């Protein structure tokens, strides 16, 4: 589940994770339960989004970065 396309835009899976974070979920487990995605996919997807600076991570807790919020705002 690549979450970032080669053009730097989030894929549908990436958007799903970003929206889950926007809804207030912060752990990979909670996002997996909420979205129905397998946990391994959520973990790898969040790592990819963090690499693109759309998401921040601290001690296993994830949040939208200012860049992620801006991107999500422009998508909706």
């Amino acid at each position, binding site marked *: 589940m690549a979450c970032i396309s080669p053009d730097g835009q989030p894929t549908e899976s990436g958007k799903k994770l970003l929206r889950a974070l926007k809804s207030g979920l912060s752990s990979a487990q909670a996002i997996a339960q909420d979205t129905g995605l*397998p*946990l391994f996919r959520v973990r790898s997807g969040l790592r990819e989004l963090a690499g693109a600076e759309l998401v921040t991570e601290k001690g296993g807790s994830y949040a939208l970065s200012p860049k992620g919020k801006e991107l999500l705002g422009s998508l909706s």
Partner: protein
Amino acid sequence: MEEVIRLPRLGEPAPDFEAPTTHGTIKLDDYKGSWLIIFSHPADFTPVCTTEFIAFAKIYPELQKRGVELLGISVDSISSHIAWARNIEEKMRVKIPFPIIADLNKEVSQRFGMVHPGQSKTETVRCVFVIDPNKIVRAMLYYPLTTGRNMDEILRLVTALQTTDEHKVATPANWRPGDMVIVPPPNTTESAEERLKQGYECVDWYLCKKKL
């Protein structure tokens, strides 16, 4: 100096990896807390591998019910994996739902001992590694290039391992879910004497079975 590669052994941690797959970059750590089956195949667009991929895709829902994820691997590229999976879906109407590692530099396959030069110097043989939620290698199967794997056995193996973990028992030859299981044999004279009085179905003190 030639690098010495330590091959995986049962009961020891699985070799760590981070690898490009058809579902993005995946690490072994991403599967922590789940069971994982990593299976290698020799090459994309080959006949036996195609039958196996269809068969793995068909047992995937059953594996997921048991909390098991599947991860394929070969030394082909991401583009090749994508094209092959699309071809399988188009020609055989089976979607490949699990990721496949593109191990072009053989980094992961060498760590897992998947290349057996006596079979092929360039391809991975048909390996299956069952890894538990603590990232411990619990079972390994190796099949030659010519012989497709048996999915019933893979399901049976995972179910047997999970039954052992849950109930602290062993499973006899040809065990199937619902069959009697083996009570661990006594390890003292005293417990050997007591064993026959404990209500199990015993052939003798060292071979006792029970229903779950």
